[in-house]
């Protein structure tokens, strides 16, 4: 036997992914691995004799480095003596401050750190992350790349990213020699979109340093670390080489962020039988010891491997918390594709999105993901409206701002023009007007005119050889009349002189002021404290371009010819073949069509036609005292000579009622008004007549659209509001006549 429901589910995108049970021997266990060492710290004569199950003589390079530069023996004895559960409790206790937790973390061993994080559940981890984030306000980082390495498109996308509020923008190269040109396009585009945005070009370290020295980039997060010695060495580095490189970058005014993340050791084959979270704790201890201000973590490129395991999403959130606890800036992943399933990857995102991190993603793909040469694009250009809507839903700032289409087109064009000018001024292969246009309005790089790539890479080499710097870029912009952009690029050069952005979790505001954990720290300690999305920022993040003003939607429709005429108060009829058609207070008056856009005149004609076709007589009344369809119908039934009425709300919802039933009971209810046609209303009329004449009646077949409510509930609310505004409490029903001759209307609807 086989279930067709299982078969249907198996076809869902989720099932392209492989889920596996834990296999600790290969490091395929998310946290609390059976071979993770017990926390241990033995200090003899002021030196560390044992750490997490190892004697000093057996320390690997990571142990040695953490002991030499990270572990604070001044607090270690106190911190290590606190039970795991108590430390876990302190992480979520609102009366235990971030500075106190950070102080204790300096004395905890990696095994202890991992075990404590392992004691927290999903929501506790989110609360801890909210408490421990370094900078007061969360922000976000963008990826900007494209398959053709088109400078105009890079500049336009960087400008869009900056204008949307991303604090950092990262690019990379398909072909290494493009690096100077891509860095240049990113610099010019970003500063066109919003002054102060920091940029980087992820390339080989030597080339990266060269770009930094020229002032073409301002930050680097390429410094990867790993949790076991063999993997670290396979990565062709040691903690000392990485720490040296970090200082070298800082010496050239580059903000440095290391990179680590669960799963990399298992993927590279040397997890040494230990859990991903424990190995990440070792990475983070080394990152802190190396003197990095922050880290990009949250599994990053190995995310799908971690998500194959039970507790994977929780472990990834746990490693973000761990980094924040160690007082590091956190760029919290969500960049590499985590899942084929939109539901699953969004659920994973919430762990960082809701508490807020220093950078909610370490690369939101501003362009469509097939142009993302990082292999990223977990969330991309097509997802931005969803991201903005979820921010608005939760009243959460996850670092992306809504911007109107015309403003984005303006900024994109300006950036493309600016890079065109800089290329011309610096003697680089020209950027054509056709490229500017395509970069401004296009969807992806497939729409970009092809460039002479050989000429581009030669020019890129030459750019470096000539020693072109950020100052030359500012001057080029200035000469070509791009005064604001020139000033913004120059301002970024001044930032390199003052170097304030080397402090923890630094971002630069449009006015050039650096906000970091030093001058703008997160001091969240419960409701009413810390960063809260309110005031002007909340106004901005809720004003999506597609938001409409309900007052406009609910406005009076254009008055037309009268549809019905009122003929005095209604009395109970005595014709046993009579069917009352009872309409709502606003029907054919302040509302003139149903939610399905059927004119009320045509609806009445169709119903009357249906009633007559079965041999009964329609009689129109307006119920004025109530707007609820059940009562409209029941009031009508009590006026009806046959005791049968068809009640009709202005939005098109209908009920067939009988006088002797309870008001909220009915014979037939037609609640899917968005789906009805005039033929539906004709069928309702026929059935009402059938009940009046005592015939056997089969219920009108009903259709079902469970999305109609999600789509139309606002319109329904507004229409119903207008109906209730027309209610006159206690007023008697009135007789109605169609203003136009019924016969002609029937003829037209039958045609």
């Amino acid at each position, binding site marked *: 036997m086989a279930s067709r429901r299982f078969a249907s589910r198996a076809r869902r995108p989720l099932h392209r992914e492989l889920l596996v049970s834990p296999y600790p021997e290969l490091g395929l266990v998310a946290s609390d691995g059976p071979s993770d060492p017990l926390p241990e710290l033995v200090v003899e004569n002021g030196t560390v004799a044992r750490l997490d199950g190892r004697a000093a003589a057996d*320390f690997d*390079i990571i142990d*040695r*480095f953490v002991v*030499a*530069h990270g572990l*604070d023996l001044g607090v270690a004895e106190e911190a290590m003596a606190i039970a795991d559960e108590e430390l876990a409790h302190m992480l979520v206790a609102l009366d235990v401050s971030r500075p106190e937790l*950070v*102080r204790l973390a300096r004395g905890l061993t990696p095994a202890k750190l991992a075990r404590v994080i392992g004691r927290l559940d999903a929501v506790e981890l989110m609360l801890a992350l909210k408490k421990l984030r370094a900078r007061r306000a969360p922000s976000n980082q963008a990826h900007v790349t494209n398959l053709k390495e088109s400078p105009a498109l890079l500049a336009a996308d960087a400008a869009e990213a900056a204008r949307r509020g991303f604090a950092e923008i990262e690019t990379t190269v398909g072909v290494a020699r493009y690096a100077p040109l891509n860095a240049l396009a990113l610099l010019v585009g970003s500063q066109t979109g919003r002054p102060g945005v920091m940029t980087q070009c992820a390339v080989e*370290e030597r080339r990266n*340093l*060269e770009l930094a*020295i*020229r*002032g073409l980039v301002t930050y680097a997060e390429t410094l990867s670390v790993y949790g076991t*010695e063999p993997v670290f060495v396979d990565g*062709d*580095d*040691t903690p*000392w*080489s990485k*720490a*040296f*490189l*970090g*200082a*070298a*970058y*800082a*010496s*050239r*005014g580059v903000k440095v962020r290391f990179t680590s993340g669960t799963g990399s050791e298992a993927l590279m084959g040397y997890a040494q039988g230990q859990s991903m979270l424990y190995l990440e704790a070792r990475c983070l201890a080394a990152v*802190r*010891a*190396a*003197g990095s*201000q922050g880290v990009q973590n949250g599994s990053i490129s190995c995310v799908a491997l971690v998500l194959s395991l039970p507790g994977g999403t929780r472990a990834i959130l746990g490693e973000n918390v761990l980094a924040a606890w160690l*007082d590091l800036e956190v760029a919290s992943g969500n960049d590499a594709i985590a899942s084929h399933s939109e539901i699953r990857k969004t659920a994973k995102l919430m762990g960082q999105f809701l508490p807020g991190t220093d950078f909610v993603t370490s690369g939101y793909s501003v362009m469509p993901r097939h142009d993302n040469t990082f292999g990223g694009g977990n969330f991309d250009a097509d997802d931005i409206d969803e991201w903005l809507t979820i921010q608005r839903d939760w009243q959460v700032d996850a670092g992306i701002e809504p911007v109107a289409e015309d403003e984005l087109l303006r900024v994109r064009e300006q950036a493309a023009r600016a890079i065109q000018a800089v290329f011309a001024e610096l003697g680089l292969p020209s950027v054509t007007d056709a490229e500017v246009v395509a970069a401004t309005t296009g969807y992806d790089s497939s729409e970009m005119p092809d460039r002479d790539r050989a000429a581009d890479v030669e020019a890129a080499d030459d750019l470096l050889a000539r*020693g072109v*710097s*950020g*100052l*030359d870029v500012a*001057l080029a912009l*200035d000469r070509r009349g791009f005064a604001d952009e*020139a*000033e913004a690029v*120059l301002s970024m*050069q*001044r930032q*390199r*002189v*003052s*170097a*304030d952005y*080397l*402090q*923890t979790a630094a971002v630069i505001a449009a006015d050039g002021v650096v906000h970091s*954990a*030093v001058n703008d720290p997160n001091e969240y300690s419960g409701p009413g404290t810390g960063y809260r999305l309110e005031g002007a920022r909340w106004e901005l993040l809720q004003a999506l371009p597609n938001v409409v003003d309900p007052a406009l939607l609910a406005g009076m429709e254009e008055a037309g010819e009268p549809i019905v005429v009122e003929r005095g108060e209604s009395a109970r009829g005595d014709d046993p073949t009579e069917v009352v058609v009872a309409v709502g207070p606003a029907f054919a008056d302040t509302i003139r069509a149903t939610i399905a856009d059927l004119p009320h005149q045509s609806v009445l004609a169709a119903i009357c036609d249906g009633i007559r076709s079965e041999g009964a007589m329609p009689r129109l009344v307006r119920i004025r005292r109530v707007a609820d369809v059940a009562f409209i119908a029941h009031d009508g039934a009590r006026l009806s000579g046959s005791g049968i009425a068809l009640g009709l709300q202005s939005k098109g919802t209908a009920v067939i009622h009988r006088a002797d039933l309870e008001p909220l009971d009915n014979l037939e209810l037609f609640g899917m008004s968005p789906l009805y046609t005039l033929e539906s209303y004709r069928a309702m009329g026929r059935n009402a007549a059938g009940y009046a004449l005592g015939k056997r009646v089969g219920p009108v077949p009903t259709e079902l659209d469970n999305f109609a409510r999600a789509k139309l509930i606002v319109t329904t609310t507004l229409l119903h509001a207008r109906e209730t505004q027309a209610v006159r409490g206690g007023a008697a029903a009135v007789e109605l006549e169609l203003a136009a001759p019924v016969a002609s209307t029937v003829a037209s609807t039958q045609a």
Partner: protein
Amino acid sequence: MTTPSGVPLTEVTLDALRAGKIDGDEIRATPATLRLQAEVARSAGRLPLAASLERAAELAAVPDELLLAVYTALRPRRATRAELENWAARLTGHGATKTAAFVREAASAYAQRGLLADG
């Protein structure tokens, strides 16, 4: 705060740029500025960050090529103990004494873990 040749930050302007008064090499933090940033980090309790910024302050005066050469030498199994000692001496020659000590410390750790070029 000034550039390495003493131009105040407030004078790094487009006008100065147009007049050719500022050179690209001027756009970098001075060792003094980086030491100040290290002090800020230390005051905030971030001792490893402060130590890194102190190394950065030393390295600000070290030529690019030496910087890259030392980085390469610190990668696994690239340099012998004597070569690392030589790089440490070169750094000391540029006044980078803390960084030199850092390189010597690496050499000791590499010797223990078999990460020197000569095992």
